[in-house]
């Protein structure tokens, strides 16, 4: 079976700085994967490559067997949605107007929103529990609400694959757990997910596999139990040995709670 998305020997660099080297990885339908790694290792870059807004320098990214390079962005956007970290909207757009933008890849030049578009928007707001916010001004929302609205925009694209860039960043602990619950429920709805995460304690029980990116060793893939090992993490994140026990404790504590 052709995987939903496939990185084939994908490399990327910004100028002289090589960020990703020969990445091979696949995402299958309905899989939910988290991407972890130190700052600057190329997590956002990988997500942008998956969304087709960056083109690999070498190798390919394939969507259902076809190289993204040969697919129009408009077409890609109908199956892959990326939710970026930061959005900043200069005018007082309402939540509903922001979510409507997710239908852009489906609209014709002179046509407005059709009933099917309305339905997709409605469903996206239902899934993210943002219906009650629809008339609010996006800029006046709290961080957690904004994050949910951004995900609603992505869902309005009716994607098969949802790419989330640090969805729990800047959220308080309560909103972080809300976000994790939302990710789980979307995954149960059959949407494949690739999310970059900084907080390793939120991973187990939420994602089925982990991709660990490190500067020296490239990408390592496995189940959360396999990857969230103190030794592997220490090599990837390069924290000093005296913090090792702390990290171990946190992850173990979380694991016990999940089990």
């Amino acid at each position, binding site marked *: 079976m052709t995987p939903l998305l496939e990185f084939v020997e994908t490399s990327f660099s910004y100028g002289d700085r090589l960020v990703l080297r020969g990445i091979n990885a696949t995402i299958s339908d309905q899989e939910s994967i988290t991407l972890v790694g130190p700052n600057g290792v190329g997590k956002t870059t990988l997500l942008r490559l998956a*969304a087709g*807004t960056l083109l690999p320098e070498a190798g390919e990214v394939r969507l259902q067997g076809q190289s993204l390079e040969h697919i*129009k*962005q*408009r*077409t*890609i*956007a109908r199956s892959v*949605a*990326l939710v*970026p970290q930061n*959005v*900043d*909207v*200069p*005018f*007082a*757009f*309402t939540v509903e*107007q*922001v979510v409507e*933008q*997710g239908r*852009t*890849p489906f*609209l014709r*030049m*002179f046509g*407005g929103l059709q009933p099917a578009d309305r339905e997709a928007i409605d469903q996206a707001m239902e899934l993210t529990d943002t219906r009650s916010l629809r008339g609010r001004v996006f800029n006046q929302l709290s961080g957690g609400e904004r994050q949910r609205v951004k995900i609603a925009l992505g869902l309005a*694209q009716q994607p098969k694959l949802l790419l989330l860039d640090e969805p729990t960043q800047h959220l308080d602990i309560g909103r972080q757990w809300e976000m994790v619950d939302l990710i789980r429920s979307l995954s149960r709805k059959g949407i494949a997910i690739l999310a970059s995460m900084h907080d390793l304690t939120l991973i187990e029980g939420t994602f089925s596999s982990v991709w660990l990116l490190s500067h020296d060793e490239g990408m390592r893939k496995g189940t959360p139990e396999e990857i969230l090992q103190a030794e592997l993490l220490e090599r990837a994140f390069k924290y000093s040995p005296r913090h090792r026990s702390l990290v171990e404790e946190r992850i173990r504590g979380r694991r016990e709670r999940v089990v």
Partner: protein
Amino acid sequence: MAREIAGIRAAVFSDADTPGCLRHRILASLLIFLLVIAILFSLGVGAVDVPLKTMARALVSREPLSADQRAIIFGIRLPRILAATLIGSALSVSGLLFQGLFLNPLADPYVIGSSGGAVLGASLGVFLLSSFSIAGFGATALLAFVGAISSILLVYSLARVQGRTPVVTLLLAGFAVSTMLSYSSYFLEVLDRDFGTGLRVLASWLHGTIAQPSWAQLAIVGVMVVFGLIASVPLARRLNTLSLGEEYATLLGIPVQQTRMAVIVVGSLLTAAAVALGGLISFVGLVVPHMMRMLLGPDHTRLLPVTALAGAVFLLLTDTLARTVIAPAELSVGVLTAFIGGPFFLYLLRRTKQETLL
């Protein structure tokens, strides 16, 4: 002022929770009604009053107008009314487009210097090409377009800082470029061959006066404006998406650079159309879209039709005022719009600073 406007809004639209769509429709019908009233009113007033009753009777019972009345209405007032509505629509819609492009509510064809560029282009047309006028006014309008587009490209490239256009750089770049352009137009006086007509045309352009347009001029500008308005329809939706930033727009399949270029071309076309007829009429492109945004929110697809209508009403009323308020003398309409628009601009600037809208 925001409170007053909110008050008007509450008065006009009794139910604040009605879907935006309904509010949009009400506003649009209201504006169409206002436009009709304004046209009738403007046809009637002036040095010779033609009472509404007389016009209505002429229309309904075919009781003919006197030759004088006909000459005044069809020969003088109607062309001027059409010119004012076309210019008002064109300036307002290009203001809306430029605000969306710069992601900055202070952009306007006058402020950012594209009107200045159009005046320079048009002056070149009058001074250099009048002797072998190929298509007469057509060449002037074309040069105005070239001038508008070059100056906005210049301001756009100067004012952008890391993908955004902060108020400060926008205003500074716009100010510098438009001042330079206006004075270049004065410089053109030196090249004036027939010592007179060119100078007078230039002077009226720099004040912003809606002169007596010929039907041929109206036809050329009319085509430009209609084309510009139609081309704005797909752009309005794309500007909504662009408001989310370049990354989002790219993600959603909007060709960002082409869209920006298209906005610049269409906005300049509308500016050139306005300038070719009326010269430098300031702040219309700022005041009108902003008022509409206060009433309807920032959705460009909704703003486009009401902005076009409101621009027509606004400039028609201002121009009617300009030609009657100190009758028999006439005021340049640009003087009035500057009186109205200047304070409004300052108010916006202040509010922007407070709320860090940007």
